[in-house]
Each structure stands twice: as structure tokens, then as C-alpha cells.
């Protein structure tokens, strides 16, 4: 029973008298308070470390800021600059491409691994731990190790490529390969995390559904399409939302790109978040960087709304 069911009768508030109004019990009130107190630290943290900086960034986006205390109001000049900045459009293109490649890859790999390890078995725990293991290592270390593995001629993967006749190939130095290589490393690093989320979703699906389907003659593929996927809708919504936001503005993506390519070669991996960072901290254009960051937030909000609309917030059809 929800709280509203307990506290308010079906009569309208206007017609209820003080005498009729149900009284919130002391215990309910304490539960209510406890709930809010539990949420309070997180809410405060979000407000102070996310909400306020976002508002400040929005404000700074209307100023020309040199990073040494000088603020000059320039209205929408920073936003107009984006329109004429080819590197901004290049960064936006890289971000979209990265997300378009990464999000489906993470979805498929995460779900695939979860299906693979959910059956249990002798080594299930070990295999789960192995897939999740990259998450336990610092991303900077991961990036450095992959950088060495991928380097042409001397890296293990570089040598393998040469051995199979691909010649000396530079995965991170070729503008045509660098982004897709970063996507591959990102998938390798993050798929274990999404595997765990999908595992949680899979374990919520009652086994009776599969048994009934089996009795009706459904094979594994049919069961997957008509039971697993539809019942994973809330999990899928969460995975898609989190991976899109991560691909566009995640700290992990930034770390990986920053260490492995620094946005190169020829800006081929300079995603918007990297370009924003460079404009702010290397070129000193804090106002312009803030304007771009604000626009990125708006774009992510729009994508989130779109995703909500398309999937009804991950709810089931009968909800």
C-alpha cells in the first residue's frame, strides 16, 4: 500500500474537515523523516557538486573569462563562436560517432556476457570476476597498458597485426583507426560493469515463464525475444541511459582519450568533453568552454527525454 492510500481518503480535500482528516501516525512520520534524511546527503551532494557548478557554468558561458579574474559580459558571443568553430563541430561529430559505436556494443556485449554467465556452473564466479576485473584497475593504468599493447611494431597487438599480414599498423596513430580502437578498449573495460547490471535484471525474471514457454514449444531464441528482452526493459532503459551519458560526458571516456591519444591524431579522437577541457585548461577560454559544457548538458537532457519518450521510462507495457 502506498503512503497516499494510508493518509488520504477518497473524498476531496476541500470537503474534508479537520476532524475527518486522517492523522499521520507517529511511526509513519518517523519513517517519512528517516527516508528524507537518508536521501539528504546525496541530494546535498548533487546540489553542491553538480547542480550549482552547472548553474555557474551556464552563467560563465555568457562571459569572456581569461582565467585570471577578468570577466567580460559577452551575451551569446560564445554560443555564436561555436557555430563558426570547425573544431567544435569536429568534436561533436567524434562524440556522436563514439556514442553510436559504443552504446550498442556495450549493450550487446554486456547482455551477451550476462547470458553466458547466468547459468551458473563450476567456474561461473571466476568467469564473472574475470570480466569485471578491468573495473578494479585504474583507468589510467588500463590506458597505458593498451597504449603499449597497440603500438606498431613492438606492441603485442601491433606484432600480431603484422604477423597476419596487416603490415605495420598504427591503431592509435592512424586517424581512420584511432576512434574505433578507443571504442574497442572502452568496451573491453566497461562490459563487465554492464554484465553485472544485466545479470541483476535477468535474475528478476521468474523461471516459471521460461518453463511455461518451453512446454508451449518455444526454443531458446523465441524465449529470448518474447520473454527475456521484454522483461529486461527497465534494465535496458537504465543501461542505455547510463551508457549514452557516459559516452558523451563520462569521466572514464575522458581519461581514456586523454591518456591514449590526447585527442589526436588530427583531432580524430577529440570528443567534445576533451575539447571542452582543452579550451578551458590549456587555452584559457573558460567562458567558451562553459558555453560548450552547457550546450552538452542541454543535448544530453534532450537525448534523455527522447529515450524516456521512446521507452516510456523503461516501464512495461501493462504499467
Amino acid at each position, binding site marked *: 500500500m502506498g503512503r497516499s492510500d494510508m493518509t488520504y481518503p477518497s473524498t476531496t480535500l476541500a470537503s474534508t474537515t479537520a476532524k475527518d482528516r486522517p492523522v499521520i*501516525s507517529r511511526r509513519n512520520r518517523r519513517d517519512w523523516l528517516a527516508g528524507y534524511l537518508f536521501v539528504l546527503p546525496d541530494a546535498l551532494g548533487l546540489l553542491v557538486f553538480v547542480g550549482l557548478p552547472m548553474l555557474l557554468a551556464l552563467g560563465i558561458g555568457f562571459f569572456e573569462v*581569461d*582565467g585570471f579574474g577578468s570577466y567580460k559580459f559577452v551575451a551569446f558571443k560564445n554560443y555564436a563562436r561555436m557555430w563558426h568553430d570547425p573544431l567544435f563541430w569536429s568534436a561533436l561529430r567524434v562524440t556522436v560517432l563514439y556514442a553510436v559505436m559504443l552504446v550498442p556494443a556495450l549493450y550487446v556485449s554486456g547482455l551477451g556476457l550476462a547470458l553466458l554467465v547466468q547459468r551458473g556452473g563450476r567456474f561461473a564466479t571466476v568467469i564473472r570476476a574475470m570480466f569485471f576485473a578491468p573495473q578494479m584497475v585504474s583507468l589510467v593504468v588500463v590506458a597505458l597498458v593498451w597504449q603499449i599493447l597497440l*603500438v606498431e611494431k613492438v606492441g603485442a597487438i601491433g606484432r600480431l597485426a603484422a604477423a597476419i599480414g596487416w603490415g605495420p599498423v598504427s591503431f592509435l596513430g592512424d586517424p581512420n583507426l584511432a576512434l574505433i580502437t578507443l571504442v574497442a578498449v572502452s568496451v573491453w573495460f566497461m562490459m563487465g560493469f554492464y554484465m553485472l547490471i544485466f545479470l541483476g535484471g535477468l535474475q528478476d525474471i521468474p523461471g516459471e515463464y521460461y518453463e511455461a514457454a518451453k512446454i508451449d514449444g518455444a526454443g531458446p531464441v523465441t524465449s529470448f525475444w518474447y520473454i527475456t528482452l521484454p522483461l529486461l526493459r527497465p534494465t535496458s532503459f537504465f543501461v542505455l541511459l547510463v551508457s549514452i551519458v557516459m559516452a558523451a560526458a563520462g569521466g572514464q571516456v575522458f581519461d581514456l582519450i586523454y591518456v591514449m591519444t590526447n585527442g589526436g591524431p588530427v583531432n580524430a579522437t577529440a570528443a567534445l568533453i576533451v575539447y571542452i577541457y582543452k579550451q578551458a*585548461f590549456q*587555452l584559457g*577560454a*573558460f567562458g567558451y568552454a562553459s558555453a560548450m559544457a552547457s550546450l552538452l548538458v542541454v543535448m544530453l537532457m534532450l537525448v534523455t527525454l527522447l529515450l524516456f519518450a521512446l521507452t516510456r521510462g523503461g516501464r512495461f507495457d501493462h504499467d
Partner: protein
Amino acid sequence: MTDRQTSPAKSGLTRRRVLQGGAALAGGIAGLPFINRIARAQGAALKFWQFYAPGGDVKPQVKWFEDMVAGWNASHDVKVELEYVTNSEYMNGSKLSTAFASGEGPDIFIISPGDFLRYYNGGVLADLTPYIDDVAKADFPESVIANRMVDGKIYGVPMEVEPMAFYYSVKAFEEAGLNENDVPKTWDELLEVAKKLTTPNRYGVLFETTPGYYQNFTWYPFLWQGGGEFQGKDGKSAFDSPATVQALKLWQDAIKSGAAPRQVLSGGFDIVANLGAGYCAMQNVGVWGISAMDNNAKNMPYGIFKLPTPANGKYVTVGGGWAFVANAKGKNPEAAARFCAWALASKDQDSIQRVVDWCTVAKSDMPPRNSALAAGGAAFTNGKMGVFSKEVHPGTRAEPRVPPEVYKIISDAIQAAQLGGADPQQTATAASQQLDAFLASYSGAPIL
């Protein structure tokens, strides 16, 4: 539950009290930075940010910094305190930028010429001239001090000069049937020798490939050798020139020929990770490579040669190096400026010897002062350092100081030609147009 029991007024939580509490909390939070600044200004030691000590892993460098600060603190009332920032965070991170943006910048810090205009135009560099004796001023060659000066005033005291050259592996040369007489003297020879040295497991020559200030720094001498500049005397862009095109083409040809890699190990400045590890046979690195090899690749025989030149070109190399600067908006700019002058630009023998020690004991660098070069004697003229002081350094030109916007335009041009395979002429023309657009609106200190 009764109204009496639930009334906020009775329980002490009135709306007014909540508002009062909120206001007090907000006031407290807002006042913290102010209180912090007062506390900071009252007798606290001057903070000296750099990437050497006390947390650095090269002991002689840590000792040099600690000895210097101990020497100052023993004889001055205003104390100095070292604050270590990791190399990568200092050069490419956000720590310094955010510190200045929030008005909490260090009192003393070090900068390279590439960053000079950003800080000078931001108004945070203190004038050091009043604290430097005329004799000491004259001790700094024009080519070393000019890019730290504006309108005749000195805003940074250089601690080193780091000219670029080529290092080569003697073993790789021998394997290819080459010897020291085959070291390339022209660009054509450089590419030819690089091809001979290239094997399935090794590249012949290595230029920096990672975009950044360092890559620009290493590319400048190739631009200058053909007579190129990025800004003409009329203040307009001079980037669209045959010299620019041939410099872009050289790096592009090295990649296209398969003799140079598209990716470097660790960083192009790291000689041990590249030449030392056998990834390449020749590497474009600065004078610091000597101490790096001596400390970390002792058993590897290597040689040094000055940068080859293009046909009809002249020999030039670039000399980078960092400088001590004082924060004009710090808590005691005068004391900070005095410290910079005392440490590296005093006519006292201690100051001169400090420069010698930095360039010979702590690192392998060329000294920024004539007196230090003389005082160092054999340390600068023998062995590998002798090659630098006699052959490489005489052609040194100071690293240009450019605004960040100019750096980015040049960086994109280098990357486009080197790794993107773009036409060098079109790249130079496009970059030149961007430079002109920027220079037309630039109003800071002169670009040098």
C-alpha cells in the same frame, strides 16, 4: 498524534529559525574563502609550485630544490615552501589553471616560454627587474632572456636552456653497416639513413606525434631552417611560405616512407622509452636526454648529432627551458620576486654555482648565464655535453612565446600534415588564414 505534538512551532523548528539557520550557513560558506585569504596572507610561507621537489623521483633534482629553499629560508624572514605537482598535472592538467582562476595561484612557480604570454597577458607575472643587478642582467644572453621580457622588463628568470638535437643508437648504425661518419647532415640524408635503419621491429627516426606544446616546440627549428616564420615583421601571418611547406612535408615524408612511427612510446621527449628501448634508431630529443640515458640506459652506446638542414637552409635549433616567475597577485609579490632573483639571477657566486649545479648535477642542460658556462668548465665541454656546447648550442634560437590560440593553429597544421596526410601547401595556407584572423584582434604583449 495531535496538532500539539506535530506543530513545528512547538518542536522548535519554525520557518523563521530554518531561514535564519540557512542564512547563517550560507554566510559561513561564503565567508570561508575570505577568512582563508586573511589566514593565508598572515605570515604563511610563500608557496613554490613546480614538478621537481619534494615529491620528485630524481634525487639530485629534489636535493637541488631543497638546498636552494633551505638557503633562502636560513637568511630571510619570509619563508618559501616547496609544493610538488606531478609533471603531467603541471604541464597538461588543470591544477595551475584552476588555482589562478580561483585567485589561489602559487606565489612562485615555473613556466616555459610556450606559457609566458598566457600568464603575462593575464597580469599575474611580477616584474623582477628591480631585484636583478645590472651585471647579472648582462650575464643572460639576449637569445635566452628575450622571450621572458616585455618593454625591457624581466618577468622570468630562466633556469636552463634545452636545445634540441638527434640521438642515435650506435648498435643500430652498426647493424645497418653505418658508422658515425654517416650521421645525416641534410634532410634528404636524414630520410635516407632512416630508411636504412628501419627494420620490421624498429623505426629509423622518431619525431613527436602527440599533439601539444611539446610537438610544436620540436617542429619550430625545421620551420626556421628554411627561413620560415609564423609571424612577419608587419605583424601579419607569414606561415604560408615555402619554408613552412617543406617543414610540414619533411615530417609527413618520414611517416609516409615507413621510416617514422605514427605513435611514440610514453612521449617524444622520453628517450629511454623510445631510443633506449630499441623502438627507433634515431630520435629528435633535447639535451636532457644525456642524463636520462646515463641514469636509465647506462649500457647503451649512443651518439648525438645536430639537426640536419634542408638544401639552401641554415642550421638552427630551438632552445626551450623553464623559468622562475613570481605571482603579481600573490600574498607577497615583492618577496617572491626577490626570491627568483636571489636564486638564479644574483651576481653572487652562490647563485652562479646554483645554475651550474642544476645544469650539470641535477640535469644535463645548457646554462642560461655566461658566467655559469665559464664556471662549469669541463662539465660543459667534455663528452656528450661537449657535443651540445660546441656543435648544437651555438645555433640555438629561443623557443617562441605564442598565445594559446596560435599554438593550437600551428599544432593542428602539424598534425594534419604529419598524421592526416593533408597537402602541406593547403595546410599552410589554411593555417595562415586562421593566424591572420587571430592576429588582427590580438592585443597582448608582443609575440616573439
